[in-house]
Each structure stands twice: as structure tokens, then as C-alpha cells.
């Protein structure tokens, strides 16, 4: 995998602050942020910060993981519905695979998500941890 500082920097809003987009025409909010509304087609959207709490609506425990992520296996990937209804795909952390369930309340936390090598680039981003309901 090739990563550049520019690429990491460009994505900082979505990755560090969970920024999504809000359509100025139809008002829908979505994640990840996009320059146009995927629902009504409007080209006018603005950045909005999303709520940091939500619940798991589907998940998988990934045992065969791509290169560069083997130390994290098994990896738990979840589809999360935030408190405002917006969906986010992200890893779960600080939880055991058999503790995860559909409907589990979770909250966002900033973690390391990928590193090039011991001395290379590091990518940080949002993961979700179990939350007290």
C-alpha cells in the first residue's frame, strides 16, 4: 500500500473529526463526505461534524485480513448508525468478537489505523468502542 502525507492530510476532516456532508438543497446528511449529494444530485453541499455516538446495525469478524493489518486480526468491522441516522463504516476496538451484537451502543474514538513501517507514515482515524447506553 502506498500512502502520501498529502493524501492523509486531505482526509483529516472525515478521519479525525467524523465530518460528513449536508446537502444544501434536500437537507440530507451523509458520510463519507462527498462534493455532491448522492440522493438528490445537488452540487451544493457543506461540511458538518457528525454525532460521535450510535449503534451497530451490522458487523463482521474478519479473520483473513489484507497485508499490513495482520497484527490486528481478527478485525471487527461494523456498520454503525449514528444518533442522527447517518451511517458510518468503521472498525470496532476495545471489544472482543463474541461481545459484539446488532444494536450495541458505540462511541467514536481516535486511534492509529495504519502504519507504513516503524519509521514511516502513520494514518490515524476514527474507530468505535462500546458505549454505556
Amino acid at each position: 500500500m502506498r500512502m502520501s502525507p498529502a493524501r492523509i492530510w486531505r482526509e483529516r476532516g472525515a478521519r479525525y473529526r467524523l465530518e460528513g456532508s449536508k446537502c444544501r438543497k434536500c437537507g440530507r446528511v451523509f458520510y463519507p463526505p462527498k462534493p455532491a449529494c448522492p440522493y438528490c444530485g445537488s452540487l451544493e453541499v457543506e461540511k458538518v461534524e457528525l454525532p460521535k455516538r450510535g449503534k451497530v446495525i451490522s458487523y463482521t469478524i474478519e479473520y483473513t485480513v489484507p497485508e499490513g493489518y495482520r497484527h490486528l486480526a481478527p478485525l471487527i468491522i461494523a456498520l454503525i448508525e449514528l444518533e442522527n441516522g447517518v451511517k458510518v463504516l468503521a472498525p470496532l476496538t476495545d471489544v472482543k468478537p463474541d461481545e459484539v451484537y446488532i444494536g450495541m451502543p458505540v462511541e467514536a474514538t481516535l486511534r492509529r489505523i495504519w502504519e507504513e513501517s516503524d519509521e514511516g507514515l502513520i494514518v490515524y482515524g476514527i474507530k468505535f468502542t462500546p458505549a454505556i447506553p
Partner: protein
Amino acid sequence: MFVTGVGMAKIDRHYDKGFQELVHMAVKNLVNDVKLFSPEAIVVGNMMSSSLFQQDSLAALVADAIGLRGRGGFKVEAACGSGGHAIAAGYALVASGLYNQVLVIGVEKMSDYPTTTTTAALAQAADFEHEAIYGTSFVALNALVMRLYMHRYEAKREDLAIWPVRMHEHGSQNPYAQLRNKITVEDVLKSAVIADPIRLMDSSPIGDGAAAVLLASEDVAGKISDTPIQIVGVGMGSDGLDLASREDLLNPMSVRIAAEKAYKMAGVGPRDIDVAEIHDAFTITALLSIEGLGFAELGESWKLIKDGRFAAGDKPSINLSGGLKARGHPVGATGVYQVAEIAMQLRGDFPGVKVGKADYGLAMNTGGVATLTTVTILKR
């Protein structure tokens, strides 16, 4: 527009063959299938030549493999749907009047690297910045969808093991199939978990393959083949690259849109289709494809499969080749295999399980998690 000739290579771990040798194998079979072979252009469906082999300009590489230096062409990339999109591009080149005879080839080499390397390349079918960056494999994305399906429709894990068993049954009779062993529901439920709830035997195998289809205009089709098969409908559709912003993961928009366009163009509906080859990279993909194509209502396909529907002898019979699960899924080549198989079914000379007398056949191929889809309808 006609399919005037087809050729396939058996899907396998062809460690002794590169892109050129695989394509050569398929095209030699195609040459034996036609009276005249002089394509004016080449369209190549392929996903991973760049990410795994550092090889672009695939049309030129392919041209030299089959003695066609000088012919123009290009590669079409739509992840695992590259083959179906190559058919659509080839169709457009002939339909526009630019050429009378276009060779569409699908080729993929997947077995040269460790599974984790191939898995990482396949993950490029997803949204890199917001899915693959987390180590999310392509299997994991499909597993999220499968869990949601089982949850919403109250389908049990064993209910969803019937499909792969049937695919191996069909594949066991197809000489081009990668997996020709029969399996049981218990085999599926005991196989290794890749990304829960997807197990190894829910998944199409990693393999190398090439397939070729010669498309020709009505003017020349009769000179090339005594049994040309007409293409009467072609449709394409897409959905969001990322899963999070999709409206409903269990209602595949790209399949619905591609199917609507193809059905309308052909002047037929789902009930008119006798035989279909659909995309079943994973068990869940088969269910969503069947529902998206209108062969079943949303949430109903797994029940119908349990009742024995869509097997050989039913209308439509689906994936008599063994599907991606057993025939194999050399990703960028798959869509071309499907069109070749449907053409052979309509001609009556498919070498595996036959549909019998059939008028209409359908091929549906998709890249990503139903992200980029093509539907092609053929008529005898």
C-alpha cells in the same frame, strides 16, 4: 448484434501461464467455433493487471498473444464486473457502426500471489479512503451485508448453505469449471470462517481464466457463424462506491437499474428468461442478484431456493455452469464467461448441465458489492 463465436479456458491455478497464454487458449477455442476470424478491434475486460502485475496497455499485450498486432483496442475496468462491461463496450463499438466485428476478451490472473496479496488487490473494488484503509477486505463488506440480510429476513445460516451446494452440483458437470467436487450443507457450515458469517464455501475460489466472445453486426454474422445468437438487451447501473451512504444495502440499485434498461431494450421481463448466469461471488451476492433481477421479491430468494426454485429444469434455470462459486471467478473475465455460456445454452451445445429448449438467456455481472453492474439479454 450477434454473438458469433465463443471460446473459454478452463479456470484453474495456471501457474505455467501468463496473460498471453491464457488468452491464447480461449481464442484458439473461439477460432475453432467460427467459419471466419478477422476481428477489427479488441476489448479486454480485466481488473488487476495493474495492481498485481504492474501491467497496463493490456489490449496490445493480448493482440500479440493471438496474432492480431495492429488492431485497436483498450482495457475495460469495473472491478469484478469488468467482463460484463467489456461486452457492453464491444457492443457499443459494433452498434455505432464503427466496426463490424469486435473481439471481447476477459482475462484475469489471481493465483500467482499469496491469498492476502490478492485479497488486498480485490479490496480495491471498495472505497479505499473510507473502507479498505481500515483493513476491510472485500469479503468483510459482503459479510456485513449477509449478516444484515439474515437479521432482517430471519434466514438461518443453514438456509444460506443450499446455494453453494447446488453450484458445486452444476459445476461438477462443467469441464471448464474450477471446482468440480460435490459438497454438502454440512461441508459449507464446517468450512473455515473468512469474515463471519461468510465461510470459505460461501466464497468463489481464486483462479486464473480467460474467455472470448466474437461480436458481429447483422451484416457479417452469417459469414462467421451458422448459429449466431442475438444480443437484444444491454443495461448498466451503479450504486455508491462506499456502503455507508447507500440507501438500502439489501436493495441493489445497480442491479435493478441495469436490469430495467436491458429488459426494456429487449422487450421482455423476468418471467420470459429461460436461463441465466448471475453474479454469485458469495452466497449473499446470489440472493441479492436474484432479487435485483426481479426473479424474486426482496427477502424472498432464500426461501425459493430452499423450495428448489432456479435449479436445472426450472424457469429460469440459474447458474447451470456452477456459477462463480464452482465454475470459478477470475474476476475481470467472469462476465465474458457468462455471455459465452448463455450463448452456448441457447445454441444447445453447452458442455455441462443444459437448459434444454430456451429462447431467452440473461447474463448479470457486477463489480464491487453490486457497485457497477451489467445485464445482457440474449435471444436464440
